[in-house]
Structures are given as structure tokens and as C-alpha cells.
């Protein structure tokens, strides 16, 4: 009798519902902002953001732009995997942005300067990010340095480091790095026909690789002994130590994997040659922070992250379709920021749902109890007679 609304009780369902609530509220706030700026075009602008590539006239171009959205989804997915993996182990990896930079740095450098093949570039990129993660983990494990602050510091150090090293891969004029497709073709990721499928040369194996990583992370966390240990360390580091887990090793290992994932994102993105690195960049790439949004929106589930990463990329891309004579593309950033803010309340939303359920249940049992009482009173009365 207590199993009313079993669907609502399911944790996954609750996560899904709260994520949808976050998205809707985020879009409402975005719409409100647009409306305040200029009420007339606001409806069309928010639709433009939501529609993204559906704004394109032909199905071929739609497919091509869908492909491009996917190209940008892959690095975001890896960044969000990095965040959620660390979070499961109780660490807030805000250093994704820096690890991502290092992935970009090593990938481009080894591709252009050392002329290494794509897989070696990818591997070196991952190693660079993993090393940065390891540093963060070491500082946490042995010196108790707050990972959030060390992460932010490493972000800036990595950004300037990347700018410095990539001077060597800069085009002669301008401030961007060279296009790998023309200058270092061996470093560009293969596409295994995906480019033809989408009609876009930037669509590469980065996309399936990212999805495979999501599945692997899910298996690692949910099915293996290592996942069991890592999550235990995250939930209660004292208990982990008590039952003989190597808690410091687990913290460092987590940051290594997290750093590697974020760096893999950066490396994959730049090795598909979709974009160039600006060596005068003075702000940390937003990809890392969007990764945080995607991780929480996806309910901290690796498979959920696939969808949330896509959604965030979709609206960020969609930002380009607003009417620039009134609005600006950053409206999409605003929406994602609002979504993360709301994701902070996930626990609150869930408690709300559960309280509702419990109250309903209590009312139900109270009624039943009253019924039993009434029956008892009746029978007592009967006995007295």
C-alpha cells in the first residue's frame, strides 16, 4: 500500500524531472532577459536559440550544422565527464578548463612542431591534462589544499602556459595557431566516413570516442571494484581509510582520470581542426565551466551527460541565431549559468518531491489509522454493552 507512485520514487526519474524543471526555468529567465532588452523580438529570439540548426533552410545544411553542433558536443561531454567523475569521488574539479587547455596545448604542439600522428597527439594531450590533475590531487591528498582554489590557479597557469608554448605553432600573421588540415594533416583525426555522412569535414571520430568514454566511465563507476572504492572514498573518506582503501591514492587517481578526460576533450576538439587557438587569449575557455553545467544538468550520470552536453551545446550554438541588432549571443551563456544555479537546488527539488510523496502517504496511513481506531472504539463500545 505504501508503493503509490513508484515511478516518482525512482531516483533516475526524479533527476530527469528536476533537470527538465531547471531547463524550463533557465529558458524562462533567458526569455525574460531578452524581453527586457527588447520586447518585440524576444519570442523570435528565444525560438532562434532553441531551434539552432533548424533555422537553416535545407535539410542538407541542417544536417551539416547538426554535425557541427555534435563536433562541439564531444569536448563538452568529456569536460562534463571529468567534472562528474571527480564529483562522485567528492572532489569538485573546477580545474577542467585548465586541463582542457593543456590538452589543446600538447595536441597542437606535438602535431605541428613534432609532426606526430593524431593518436600520439591525443595521447600526449591526455597525459598533460592528467599530470595537471595529478598535481591537484597530490596537493589535496598530502597538503590539504582546497581543490577548487588550486584548480582555479592551475587554470590560469595552464592558460598562460598554453599561450606561451603555442607561440611556436602560430600563423605568421595574426594571433591564431595554424590550421592543422593544411599544415599538419597527419595530426587531424580520421573521420571514418562520418564527414561524408554529415557533409561536414570537421565531423570525426571524436564524436563516437566521446560517447564511448561516457559508457566506459559509467561502467567504471557502477560496475567495478575501483568504482566502488572511489565512490566510498568520495562519500566518506574516513570510512574508506578505516576499511583499508588507499584514500590518498584514490583521490589522486580520480584527479588523474578527471584531468585526462578534460584534456582529451580539448585535444579531440582541436585535432578535428574545427577551430584555432588564440595565443593572446586572456580568459580561460568557457568549455570547462559549461562542463560543470552539463555534469549537473545530466544528474551526475555519465549517460545523462551525453544528453545534457548536447543540450548545452545546442543552445550555445543557437545563441548565434538571435537578431544581433538587438541582442547578443551571450544570452545562451546566461541561460546555461542560470541552469547551473538552479542545479544547485536539485537536492531541494528532490526533497520537495519526496516530502510531497511522504505527506500523501501519511495522509493515507492516518486515514487508515483513524479507520482502525474508529473500528476499535466501535468494538469496545460493543463489548461494554
Amino acid at each position: 500500500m505504501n508503493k503509490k507512485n513508484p515511478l516518482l520514487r525512482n531516483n533516475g526519474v526524479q533527476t530527469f524531472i528536476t533537470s527538465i524543471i531547471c531547463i524550463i526555468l533557465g529558458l524562462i529567465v533567458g526569455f525574460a532577459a531578452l524581453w527586457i532588452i527588447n520586447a518585440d523580438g524576444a519570442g523570435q529570439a528565444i525560438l532562434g536559440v532553441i531551434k539552432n540548426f533548424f533555422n537553416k533552410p535545407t535539410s542538407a545544411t541542417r544536417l551539416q550544422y547538426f554535425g557541427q553542433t555534435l563536433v562541439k558536443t564531444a569536448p563538452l561531454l568529456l569536460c562534463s565527464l571529468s567534472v562528474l567523475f571527480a564529483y562522485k569521488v567528492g572532489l569538485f574539479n573546477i580545474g577542467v578548463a585548465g586541463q582542457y587547455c593543456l590538452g589543446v596545448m600538447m595536441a597542437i604542439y606535438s602535431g605541428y612542431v613534432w609532426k606526430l600522428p593524431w593518436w600520439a597527439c591525443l595521447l600526449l594531450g591526455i597525459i598533460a591534462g592528467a599530470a595537471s590533475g595529478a598535481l591537484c590531487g597530490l596537493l589535496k591528498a598530502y597538503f590539504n589544499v582546497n581543490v577548487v582554489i588550486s584548480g582555479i590557479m592551475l587554470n590560469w597557469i595552464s592558460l598562460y602556459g598554453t599561450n606561451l608554448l603555442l607561440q611556436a605553432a602560430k600563423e605568421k600573421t595574426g594571433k591564431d595557431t595554424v590550421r592543422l588540415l593544411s599544415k599538419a594533416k597527419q595530426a587531424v583525426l580520421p573521420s571514418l566516413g562520418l564527414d561524408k555522412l554529415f557533409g561536414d569535414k570537421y565531423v570525426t571520430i571524436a564524436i563516437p570516442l566521446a560517447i564511448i568514454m561516457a559508457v566506459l566511465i559509467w561502467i567504471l563507476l557502477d560496475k567495478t571494484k575501483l568504482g566502488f572504492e572511489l565512490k566510498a572514498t568520495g562519500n566518506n573518506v574516513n570510512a574508506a581509510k578505516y576499511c583499508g582503501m588507499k584514500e590518498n591514492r584514490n583521490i589522486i587517481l580520480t584527479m588523474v582520470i578527471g584531468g585526462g578526460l578534460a584534456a582529451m576533450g580539448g585535444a579531440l576538439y582541436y585535432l578535428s581542426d574545427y577551430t584555432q587557438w588564440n595565443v593572446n587569449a586572456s580568459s580561460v575557455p568557457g568549455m570547462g565551466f559549461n562542463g560543470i553545467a552539463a555534469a549537473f544538468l545530466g544528474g551526475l550520470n555519465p549517460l545523462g551527460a551525453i544528453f545534457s552536453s548536447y543540450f548545452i551545446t545546442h543552445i550555445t550554438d543557437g545563441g548565434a541565431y538571435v537578431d544581433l541588432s538587438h541582442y547578443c549571443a551571450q544570452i545562451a551563456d546566461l541561460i546555461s549559468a542560470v541552469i547551473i544555479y538552479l542545479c544547485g537546488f536539485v537536492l531541494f527539488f528532490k526533497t520537495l518531491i519526496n516530502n510531497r510523496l511522504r505527506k500523501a502517504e501519511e495522509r493515507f496511513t492516518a486515514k487508515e489509522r483513524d479507520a482502525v481506531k474508529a473500528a476499535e472504539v466501535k468494538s469496545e463500545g460493543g463489548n461494554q454493552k
Partner: protein
Amino acid sequence: MILLLQYTLIFASVLLLVALGGCVSEHSGVINLGLEGIMVMGALGGALVMKFLPYDGGAGFGMFICVLLAAMLIGVLYSSLLAVACINLKADQTIVGTALNMLATALATVFVKSMNTAMNPNDHSSEIFYGKAKEAFVSKLGNFELNWFMIVAVILLVIVYVMLYKTKFGLRLRACGEHPQAAASVGISVFKMRWAGVLLSGLLGGVGGITYITAGASTWKFENGVAGFGFLALAVMIFGAWHPFKIAGAALLFGLFRALGNVYGAFDFLKSMNIPSAIYNMLPYIVCLIVLTFTSKNSKAPKAEGIPYDKGMR
């Protein structure tokens, strides 16, 4: 040399103000990771006043007060988003702080861009020019440019110290950060004290934000945020062991390293070493990491910080 001193002092002022904000908030029991965002919003408020308030040059006390108040007000308002989430709704303080940092940059960018576009349809930049208005609160003492916000920082340092350690309010605030159940048991409203802590940190963070952008140029591009200064300030606070005067010392140290990045060109021996500017840019962050490595082990952090207060818990 004077230039180095000037930059050191101005950056130290920024770090001091923001670190004091973090300190007040943490003493009440809330970790304010949104200081970076609060700085951006405070800077936005101040910059708008500088842009739109009529001003004819010379020392402008009225202008200065308006800029200061605007930065404080916006900082306080924005920090209430953190307060409501972390105190009343018991949200994760890390996520909310991070979200507020992202939101501030996005919000300021959208706002400034749409304002610029509305005034000139071809202007899509996120910059605010306030060149002349800045002169209102910069006094020249020989070659040294005294930014009035340096004085504000010193005054606020003393005020925060007295407030925390000499008043009834400070005693109660610190009790909430150390042992909220104890505070509640003697009739102190933990929620109210924590709200006060967070709003005060918003006020200080807002002033820190406007100080930061007036440190250098006569224009500010809001897409750039404040380059991790909010987090540097948190590191300063940790290094300063949550104590106002020690924080001031730490702020001077970090200010010096940050200033080196701006003025190393003026020193011949530094210039002759031919170190790329990126290295100087990295310097404060590297120093911060090293300092944290050696100071984090014996943390003097308030015991209950970061833990949402729940009436039911005893």
C-alpha cells in the same frame, strides 16, 4: 619603482577588500565561492555610475561616493542570490558559487552589449568607457597616483576587525561559523547571521570589483571578468588565517607579484632577462599555489563553514 608601489597597493587593496568579504562570510559559516561574480557585478554597478553621472573633472567627492555606493549596492543584491540558495534552500555552496561566477560574466556581458547596441546599433562590444570620471578619485602625489579606494580598503579593514572582535554582532557572527547549534541554543538566529555575513561579503566584494577595474585602464571589457581575482582573494584569506590583519599582510604580498606583471618593463634588469610576459602573468597564481601548499595543512578555518545549518540537527 613608484609605479610598482602604486600597482602593488592598488592590487593589494582589491585582494584585501575581497578577502575580507570572504572572511566575513566564512566566519558566519558560508563559503562564498561566488566572490569572483560579485566583483564583476560590483564593477558593473560602479562603471555605470561613472559612465552616466555628469562630471566636469577635478576631485569629485560626490562622484566617488556614488560609485562606491553603487558598487556596494549591486554587490549586496547579487550576493543575496548566494544567500537564499545556500542558507535557505541548503544548496551545494560550491555549485552555487560557481554558477554565480558564470552568471555574473554572462549577465554583465549581455547587459553592456545590449546597452551599447541600443545606443549605437553598430556597437556590439562589451566595453564601458569611463576614462574621465576615474580622475574624480585619483589624487596625484608627485608621481604616485593615489586611488581613493586604497584608503577605503584601509578604513574597511579597521571596520571589519572591530566589527568581528569588538562588537556583539561579531561575536554572534563568529559563533554561527564555529558552532551554529550553540549559537541557536542561546537564541541567536543562525539564518539571519549567515544572511548578514553573506550580504556583507557582497558589499566588500562589490567594492573590490570596482577597485579592480579602476586599477588600470580607462575602459573595461566585461567579457573578461576579473581574471580569477575572487579566487586569489580566497587564497589570500586562507594564507591570512581568517584574520583581518594577517589577511592585509597576505594581500600585500600577492599584490606585489601581480603588480610585477604590469610593470616589469620599467625595470631594466627584469627587462634584460627577456622573460616572456606570460611568465609574469602566471606568477601570482604560481605563488598562490606554493603558499597554499604550505599553509593549508593546519587550517584555522571556522569549524562549521560550508555546512548548511539545519534546525533539526543537534
